[in-house]
Structure formats: C-alpha cells, structure tokens
C-alpha cells in the first residue's frame, strides 16, 4: 500500500507521513467506494471532489463528528491491507486544525501537552485563589457573602477578561480557518448569485445541525457507535447535557451580572432566583453530561478517534465536570466556615477552564460549526465533478 499512499500524497501535494497525507490516502479509497454516504455529511461532501487539497482535508475532518459508524461498516478497515480507519484519520487531522489555526500561533503547541497544560492550569488557578483568600483573612468573612472573600469587581474583571480573551483567540483562529476553507474561494463567477442565495438558508441549516447534533444520529437516527458496531444515542444525549448545561451556567452568570450591576441585587441569591435555578439546572447537566462522555470515552474503540488525544479530550471534559461539582459543593457549603475554601477551589477550576479554553478541546465546536456552514452552503451549489452526479 506504500504505492497507493505515495500516489495519493503526490496528487494532493501533501508532505509524507503527515496526518493530512494519511487522510488523503483514505479519502481516495472512500471516494471509490462511497458505501457510507448515508451516515453523515462527510461522505456526500467528499463525493463532490476528485482530489483533496489540504484545505479540503481540514474541512472534511472538522465536518466529521467521530460517530464511528463508518469504521465498523468499512470493508477496508484493519486487518484489511488498505487499513482504512476513517474516524481515526479524521481525528488526527482535527487536532492539527486546532494546532495550526490556534491564535496566537505559538500557543498551538499547547495541544501537544494537553494533559500537562490542564493539570498545571488547574493547580495554578486553585493556588492563586487560595492564596488570595488567605490574604483576605477569615475574620472578614460574613455568612454566605462571597464578596467578603473576593471583591465582586475583581472577580467580574478577572473572569470577564479571561472569557473575552478566549472568545477573541478562538475567533481569530476561526477567521484564519475560514479564509482557507470558505466556499467562496473556488466558486466560479457564474455561481456567485447562487452562493449569495445560499447563505441564509445554509446558516439556518448549519445552526440547526449543530444545535441538534444531527450527525451524531448516524443517518438512520439510531445514534453512533462507541465500543463496537452497536448504535446508541448515548453520546448525543450526553453531549446535549454537557453543551446545554454549559449554556445554562453561562446564562446564570449573565443574569447574575445583570442583577448585580443593573438591578443592584447582590449574591448570594435565593434558591428560587434565576441565577440559582439556571445555574443548578445547567450544573446538573454539566455533571451528568461530562460524566457520561468520560464513561463513553473510556470504552471507545481504539480506532474510533485517536487515543493520543485522550488527554485533550478527557482533560477538557474533566474540567467541565469539576466546575459543576465544585459549584454544587459551594452551594452546599456556602453557610459554613468552609465557604472560602470551597469558593477558592470552584473559582480555581472555572479559571483553569477559562484560561485553557482557546487551546483546548473547546475549539472543536467552532471549527465544527464552520465546517457545517461550509457544507450547508456548498450542497446548494452545483457539483463540478460528473462522477458525483452520475
């Protein structure tokens, strides 16, 4: 198969031994087979092409949700000598996307030490808040008032900055990615009006596909595979719990900020208030979701995804889980003398999550949405290769 590999590489102009060259080799096989077309968006997007450029490969890799259906259905999967392990090839390219498009560029290297980065950020952030709490001194702490430990203004400023920076850094990466994969790049002038017409419906479709995780449904709606060829909706559901849990927690923070600055209502908020209701509902999702995802990750077939990326995957999921768990602990302990300790740990975890966001697995959502958008746009444009049409 060395010959096949070399030919595919030469065709795509990719450097030997890279994740992209291996993906191109497998795509060449998949494009001659096409049995998996119904599973997801990747294969219909593939059949629109005869050769695969680096940008095409990064686009397809991020369109792949790693549902694994194609691995188990593949007649060319190992031990076949063609050794097609498509979800793994796509996963190996995806981490390259996160690295290559990271902003600032030097921070892309952090993906190579994802486990270490997570652990150090966590330890550092918790130590930071514990040290600050120690300097405040316990005598000043009254009841459940967090702001006697850390002034509200300080917290709002520190966390606001960290989160805003994370979004900025990720949007910079996304911009660079879009510059390479935008469907506008290779649209012939004749198709420009079609492109303009496609934008609105495509955006709506992509948003819906992202919000529903359409492509974790396996095409038939039975779900995706994990340990073996069995389909299950578990992954889609745990991801929904995680994502919408995160969204609710974020909403809780926004409402609390509004209450504080606009309405002059200060924490701690009563149990029946919006910040607590949103936060604890979201928090429950952020407990169950990441726990489920970790459980699935531990059982995943080694060829479905890239085992080398486990520190990145599990590090990020663990931070989400810890953020929620320490939040609940704080809710329980907020009337006790342990409150400053619990608060410092919770804030440390959240800060670790925020500072690592731009160079963590969190990035996958951004590139995934961009790929979904591109797919939704290009499927509304005519196909250039005859063999894709028939």
């Amino acid at each position, binding site marked *: 198969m060395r*010959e*096949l590999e070399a*030919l*595919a590489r030469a*065709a795509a102009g990719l450097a030997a031994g890279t994740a992209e060259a291996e993906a191109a080799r497998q795509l*060449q*096989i998949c*494009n*001659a*087979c*096409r*049995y*998996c*077309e*119904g*599973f997801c968006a990747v294969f*219909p997007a593939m*059949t629109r092409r*005869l050769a695969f450029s680096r940008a095409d490969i990064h686009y397809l890799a991020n369109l792949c949700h790693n549902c694994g*259906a*194609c691995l*188990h*259905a*593949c*007649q*060319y999967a190992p*031990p*076949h*000598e*063609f050794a097609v392990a498509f979800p793994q090839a796509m996963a190996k390219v995806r981490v390259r996307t996160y690295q290559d498009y990271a902003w600032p560029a030097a921070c892309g290297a952090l993906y190579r030490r994802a486990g270490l980065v997570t652990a150090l950020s966590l330890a550092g952030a918790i130590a930071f808040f514990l040290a600050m709490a120690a300097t405040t001194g316990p005598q000043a702490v009254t009841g459940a008032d967090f702001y006697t430990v850390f002034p509200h203004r300080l917290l709002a400023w520190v966390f606001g900055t960290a989160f805003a920076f994370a979004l900025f850094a990720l949007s910079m990466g996304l911009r660079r990615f879009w510059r390479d994969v935008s469907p506008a790049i290779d649209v012939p002038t004749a198709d420009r009006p079609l492109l303009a017409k496609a934008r609105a419906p495509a955006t709506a479709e992509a948003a819906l596909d992202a919000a529903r995780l359409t492509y974790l449904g396996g*095409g*038939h709606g*039975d779900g995706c595979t994990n340990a073996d*060829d*069995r389909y299950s909706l578990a992954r889609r559901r745990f991801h929904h719990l995680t994502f919408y849990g995160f969204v609710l927690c974020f909403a809780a923070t926004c409402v609390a900020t509004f209450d504080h600055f606009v309405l002059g209502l200060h924490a701690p908020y009563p149990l029946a208030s919006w910040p607590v209701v949103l936060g604890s509902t979201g928090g429950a999702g952020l407990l169950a979701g990441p726990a489920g995802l970790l459980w699935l990750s531990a059982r995943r077939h080694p060829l479905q995804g890239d085992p080398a990326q486990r520190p990145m995957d599990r590090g990020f999921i663990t931070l989400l889980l810890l953020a929620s768990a320490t939040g609940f602990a704080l809710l329980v302990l907020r009337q006790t003398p342990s409150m400053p300790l619990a608060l410092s740990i919770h804030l440390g975890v959240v800060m670790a999550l925020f500072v690592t966001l731009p160079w963590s697995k969190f990035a996958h959502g951004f590139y995934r949405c961009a790929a979904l958008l591109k797919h939704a746009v290009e499927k509304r444009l005519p196909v*250039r*290769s*005859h*063999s*894709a*049409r*028939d």
Partner: protein
Amino acid sequence: MIDVLVVGGGNAALCAALTAREAGASVLLLEAAPREWRGGNSQHTRNLRCMHEAPQDVLQEAYPEEEFWQDLLKVTGGATDEKLARLVIRASSTCRPWMARHGVRFQPSLSGTLHLSRTNAFFMGGGKALVNAFYRSAQALGVQVRYGAPVDAIEMDGGRFAGARVGGERIEARACVLAAGGFESNREWLREAWGRNEWGEWPADNFLVRGTRFNQGTLIKRMMEAGADIVGDPTQAHCVAIDARAPLYDGGIVTRVDCVSLGVMLNRYGRRFYDEGEDFWPKRYAIWGRLVAQQQGQVGYCVIDSKAVGRFMPPVFPGECAQTLPELAQQLGLPEENFMHTLQEFNAACRPGTFDHTVLDDCATAGLEPPKSHWALPIDTPPFYGYMLRPGITFTYLGLKTNEDAAVHFGGRPSPNLFVAGEMMAGNVLGRGYTAGVGMSIGTAFGRIAGQRAAQACKQGALHA
C-alpha cells in the same frame, strides 16, 4: 443436540439462522472466517434488487415482477429456473421490513449509481453494516455463533443430514443449512476449471479475487462426492476487469476501473480487442473480466485522455499519467510502435458526433475493427492516463440443485433435513450473467426459506422419533 446447524456466516447463512431461531429452533452458526473477516462476500455488497409496485423509502417509481423477471431472463440468457426466480422476485418485495427489524438500515442510491435508484435498495454503510446488524440480532436472539470454524465434512445417512465435522470435532443437529459460498477463492480449483490456454498459460493463475479468501468450495466438493445434484458450469464465474494492483483477495468495489467506455482497451501488444462502447458501462462491465482473461498474459490496458476525467467514478489507484502518448506507452510497458499505430488509427476513425455519456450517443468509429460504437472521441488531450487491468473474480456459478423448499437433492429426491442457500445455490436462479443486487436477493429469499424449512424439519423429525 442443537436443532439447526447453519454452515456459513454471510447474508444467506444469517437469514437462515435468524429465521430458524424466530421459528423456535435452537441454532448454531459456524463461520469459517475469524471474527474480523466474518460475512463472506456479503461484506462487500451494497444493495439488493427489489421488486416494488410503488415508490418506497429509498426506491423510486415501480419495479414490477414482470420487469424484474425479464431483466433476469435477459442477463441469464434463459439459464434460470422460472419458478425459483419468481419466488426470489416476490420475496424481494417483502423482505425489507424483516431486515429492518433485525437492524438493517437503507439509504438512497449512492452518488454515481443513479441507474440503480429505481431497482436496488442500498444498505446504509454497505454489506458489512448489514452483516454486523444481523450478527447483533442473532446474538440478541440467542443464536450461538462460532468463528474460525470451517466445516470440512458433512456426514449423510442416506439422504438425511447426520452431522458435520470441524477438524476433529463432530457436531450433530436435527437439520442443517449449507450457506458457505462458492469456490471462487480456491486457486487450485479455478486453475483446474479454467485449464490451459493456446499459449500454454494457466489463465486462472493471474486472476484476482474480489471477495473473501474463505470461499474455498469445500462443501460443494463434499456434496458432489456425496452424490448431490449439481447446477452450473465450473468454468463460469462473474468476472470483472479490475486494477492489476488490487490485493489478491477482498479488493471489493474500489478496485474497478470505470473508464473503459470512455477510452480504448489494449492488450499487451498494444492492440484493441473489443468494442469499448458497445453498451452502457453498468451493462457491460462484467464482460471485460472474461475478455481480459482471454488475452495473452491475462492483462488489459485502459487508456483515456483528460476529457474523460471526472466522468467516471474515481478509481482507488491513480493511473499512470503522461503528457504524451509515447511516454504513456513506455510507462505502461507497452510496445510504443503498436501502441501509437493503434491510437492514431483509432483517433482517425472517430466520426464527429455529439458526445453524451448518458445516452447511446452518435460518437462512433468508422471502418475500424473492432469498432467503438458509442462515446468514441479521439484520445488527444493531455495529460493521458493508463490503467493496467486483470480479471477479478466476484463469484462462481457452480452450486447445488434445489427446489422452492431450498432442499439439497440427491438423485432428484429432496433431502428431508439438509438445505442450501446463497452462493451455493444461486446458480439455480442465475445460471449465467449478472444484474446488480440479485445475489443478495437470492441469498435473502433462500436463506429465509432454508431457515424456515430447517426449523420445520426439526419439529417433524421430533414427531417421527
């Protein structure tokens, strides 16, 4: 003792095992291949030909019984049994809900297969996904499955099945279904069947096998020795011209090269030998295996120019590519003088017309032998591409004679408890030729019949005992 023993592990075997289990029998399935290679040739399939009177989920318009039958009659040239063929056709119209209950999912016809969107229901993920679904269902229903268990002998008691042997182990059962595939992976047998040609070559030595390496035909041979009635001709096989770089086994669908009708096909002497544009490619691809097998060295070279690129399914192996025809001849290792003479003669013979690959167009050669009847365009636009092709065997037609009960016959009498399904009996319906998806229709119909009858035979056997 187990009720029903199923020998084989592909679609027909699984259909038999599931049906027998549903009928209440205890079932043991013996798959010769290890777990990772299970499923026989079914793992390389992609659809099943289905009769239907109205549009269905993944099937357009209608494909009535009579049309299906006429198609079958045409491709087999009459080498079929109408009663059994119509049984298969009718079963194909009702089997899909049953398959879906056992976890098989369907998808619309694949891009590049528009011509099948009316007649063939595609399995989502292909045949291996189908096989996986059936194994999962079998496991859930309590069918016992053993991998790496090739049956090498069947013990008969008159016309009754008595037991099977796997190595030194003897397995008894009240009834047995044989669904272990043809003999296409048995190199010795192929060699013997094809014999020597006029140049003293053994053509079968240069054949590649598109499917599993486990279809050794052991049980066909054992049943022949036991005096079972046989159908089909051992020298007949479904044979396609595939890329010469394909692996010896399990190359499957991707090794085909679909640009023959867009270019010219040469032999090792650089000469054309058949009309490349005789008919639509889906109707003609299956003749090229035999045509190439009849050439010296069992090799053919398909040459196209850049006008053809993008008009056919992308092949898995990129072709040899050159900016000039003499360079291409060198790269392909063909005698340059003959090659150039053939190409120049062909180019000069192409009559102007309106090229359209979707119809039998008017681009034909004039005064050329052999002619190219359609899609004949001069090969004149660089870069030029060439593919070396070899015969690729899909399956063999030799099998056991059977009836509408799927019974194995001895001297014209059906066995009360030995049944057959799949490739091992497909020759009853498909004595020659092929049309897409019909092998899976036969395997599914007869697999289910065999499973049903085997379960019944157990009950009847119990009453008699």
